[in-house]
């Protein structure tokens, strides 16, 4: 009796949980979206899109994706056969067990009434298949140790729960005829872990058995012209579709930066985890904000993650959109003043001009103002020894100290295409290249570091190439920019496993 109560309870929790999770897709929002798109608008838009897809040629696409990607997972097999084998063993065998064993009263008895006992060896075999799949998963996650692929408690929990369910099931079969007390005890373990898995399904990684197929299907039929209301919904749904497999982090072009900076948000798979929490609780504190800003800005928009994602998540659009949301908050992101902004510039016409310029302005101000000696025109600036330290450190390039060779011929400023672009360059750039080099000679590194010239440098190396004294002007600029970013204290945003050496 109490078994039945527990069973219905687990089903109820699972059902309510599923509704709650799916409702979340329409309630929350991430990135920049039209605030006028309400939950009801989104639900209507989703239903409309669903109907129009089903009653059009796109139905064929959906059926094709359902067969090749959802059922047979061909896209995973093409990438990594071991991973595909692991997943198919678990997923196919477990599905078999669910239908022919867990739901035996409904399915098996009606279909195979007379052959019920003959089915047992197959069930046992399926159990061993699941165990083999779990063994491969454990091997991949804990023995292979692919660099930058993380395993979190949820990944382990899912594997352990599956293992307990299947192992107890196998043990049941084997103890059936030997000992009733053992049988009873193991049966309890088997039954209760199954119920736990069922009740916890919507809130655990198991939820991906629903959300990932949805993502694969939805992304197969959505494109640039899709309704913005559906994009808003899709981007939340995609967070749930991520099963934390780590493929994206493995392929990510800039993931290597994580090895030195240690900010987990650099890795796309870990960033997805961060974002899952972020949607529910947007107040993440200054540290959290800086960490996600740095992580999400360290991206060359190479699209590899989007191409590789086995859940078909459109990560490209998700990153661009969330990046826009997080850079609009806070006091500027120094990485915005690097070529990581290139893709944003290429697509500037997709943004509101003011929304586009404001974070850039804030970032430039944040990185130059602390060294704001350039603004002090009315009082003398004390000379110092800062530049001597700069020269001694010289960790950046063996020639950083070459500024002391400068004899102020101004060749660097003359050939600089940026300087040449302005009627009144000092007004636009603060110090010109030769003045930056001279201020180092005078020991006023702060003066140089507050100069906008550094950040508007094209890095074309004309100055360095044309210096008659061999001053490494462009490389010194790089060094000054590094120092400014570091001393402003906003980088690194986090302290992860790898400590960056303090300069």
């Amino acid at each position, binding site marked *: 009796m109490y078994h039945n109560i527990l069973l219905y309870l687990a089903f109820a929790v699972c059902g309510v949980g599923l509704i709650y999770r799916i409702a979340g897709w329409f309630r929350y929002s991430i990135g920049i979206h039209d605030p006028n798109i309400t939950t009801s608008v989104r639900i209507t838009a989703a239903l409309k899109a669903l109907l129009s897809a089903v009653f059009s040629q796109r139905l064929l696409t959906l059926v094709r994706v359902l067969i090749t990607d959802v059922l047979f997972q061909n896209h995973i097999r093409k990438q990594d056969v071991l991973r595909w084998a692991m997943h198919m063993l678990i997923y196919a065998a477990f599905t078999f067990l669910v239908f022919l064993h867990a739901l035996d009263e409904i399915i098996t008895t009606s279909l195979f009434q007379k052959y019920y006992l003959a089915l047992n060896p197959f069930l046992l075999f399926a159990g061993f298949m699941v165990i083999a799949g779990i063994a491969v998963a454990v091997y991949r996650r804990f023995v292979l140790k692919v*660099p930058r692929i993380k395993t979190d408690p949820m990944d382990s929990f899912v594997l352990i729960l599956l293992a307990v369910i299947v192992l107890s099931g196998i043990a049941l079969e084997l103890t059936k005829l030997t000992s009733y007390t053992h049988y009873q005890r193991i049966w309890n373990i088997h039954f209760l872990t199954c119920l736990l898995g069922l009740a916890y399904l919507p809130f655990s990684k198991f939820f991906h058995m629903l959300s990932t197929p949805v993502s694969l299907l939805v992304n197969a039929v959505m494109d640039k012209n899709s309704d913005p209301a559906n994009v808003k919904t899709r981007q939340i749904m995609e967070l749930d579709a991520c099963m934390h497999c780590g493929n994206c982090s493995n392929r*990510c*072009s*800039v*993931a*290597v*930066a994580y*090895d*030195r*900076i240690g900010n987990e948000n650099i890795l796309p798979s870990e960033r997805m985890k961060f974002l899952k929490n972020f949607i529910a609780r947007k107040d993440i504190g200054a540290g959290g904000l800086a960490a996600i800003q740095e992580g999400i800005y*360290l991206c*060359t*928009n*190479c*699209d*590899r993650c989007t191409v590789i994602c086995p859940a078909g998540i459109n990560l490209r659009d998700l990153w661009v959109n969330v990046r826009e949301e997080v850079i609009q908050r806070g006091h500027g992101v*120094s*990485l*915005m*003043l*690097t*070529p*990581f*902004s*290139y*893709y*944003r*510039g*290429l697509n*500037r*016409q997709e943004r509101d001009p003011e929304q586009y310029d404001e974070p*850039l302005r804030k970032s430039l101000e944040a990185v130059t103002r602390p060294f704001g000696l350039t603004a002090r025109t009315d009082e003398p600036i004390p000379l110092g020894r800062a530049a001597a330290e700069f020269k001694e450190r010289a*960790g*950046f*390039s*063996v020639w950083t100290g070459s500024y002391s060779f400068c004899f102020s011929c101004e060749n660097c400023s003359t050939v600089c*295409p*940026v300087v040449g*672009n302005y009627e009144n360059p000092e007004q636009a750039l603060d110090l010109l290249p030769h003045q930056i080099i001279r201020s180092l000679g005078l020991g006023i590194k702060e003066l140089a570091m507050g100069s906008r010239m550094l*950040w*508007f440098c*094209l*890095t*074309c*190396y*004309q100055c*360095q*190439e044309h210096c008659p004294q061999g001053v*490494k002007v*462009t*490389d010194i600029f*790089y*060094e000054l*920019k*590094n120092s400014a*970013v*570091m001393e402003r204290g906003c*980088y690194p945003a986090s302290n992860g496993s790898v400590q*960056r*050496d303090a300069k």
Partner: protein
Amino acid sequence: MRFSLFLGCNIPARVPQYELSARAVLHKLGVELADNPDFKCCGNPIRNADHKTFMLMALRNLALAERQGLDMLVLCMCCFGSLKKAAHLMERDSALREEMNELLAREGLTYSGRVAVKHFLSVLYHDVGTGALKEKTTRPFKGVKIAAHYGCHALRPSDVTHFDDPVAPVLFEELVSLTGARSLEWPLKLECCGAPLLGVNDRLSMEMTAKKLADAKRVGADYLCVACPYCHLQFDRVQQMMVSLRDTNSRLCTVVYPQLLGLAMGIEGNALGIDMNVLDMSSIVSFLE
């Protein structure tokens, strides 16, 4: 002749015609390419913020090529400049060498400096040779005027890149000429395309681009020719954006060098992706003999 092909981030995502045409041309010239899916970003974008992370990112690629036992052929000039810079510093700084190799060792990698990094144009000019190229140009251009845009990070700093004479280079123009096209002399040919500042200071970036375009037009160029995805995007996609933002109407289309060479070698336009540019340059085939 066999190289490890380094594509970087921009080409596969935004300038696939460069990869397509370079592969087609090199294949016909008998240069073999090995792909390495483990290559990642060259490190260039992070140079402004953190030098050592840049070094690690660049060196990891060099170490991977070293493990392949191949020299690298790089299509992007910014990637080329970064990789050369990292290799250059590793040669001169033993402390840095040690520190970096320690980080690389976690992935079982090591870099000892045995890899030569070569830009695509250098491979054509030096390794394949202009004589061999000339022989293969069976369908040369006639009468088309090309402004060759060198690109900064291949040319400078010359003591690091060793690409060509930084003040009076000839390599790119000779490569253009041997396709039968007329390579023009133009004052701003060695200037920056403006791409490094796009997204940081768009006005300045576009002004650099506008100046170059005006200069090339002034000397009568029919097309610009580039060998770097950043330069290409700047003269193609960004020029298109400038046309809509600044309301200027005259355009100067750009071709990627292997497209030009490939056409002259008799390769069909669609195998070189000549319809993949934003600004339509496909009419260049009308200049073929």
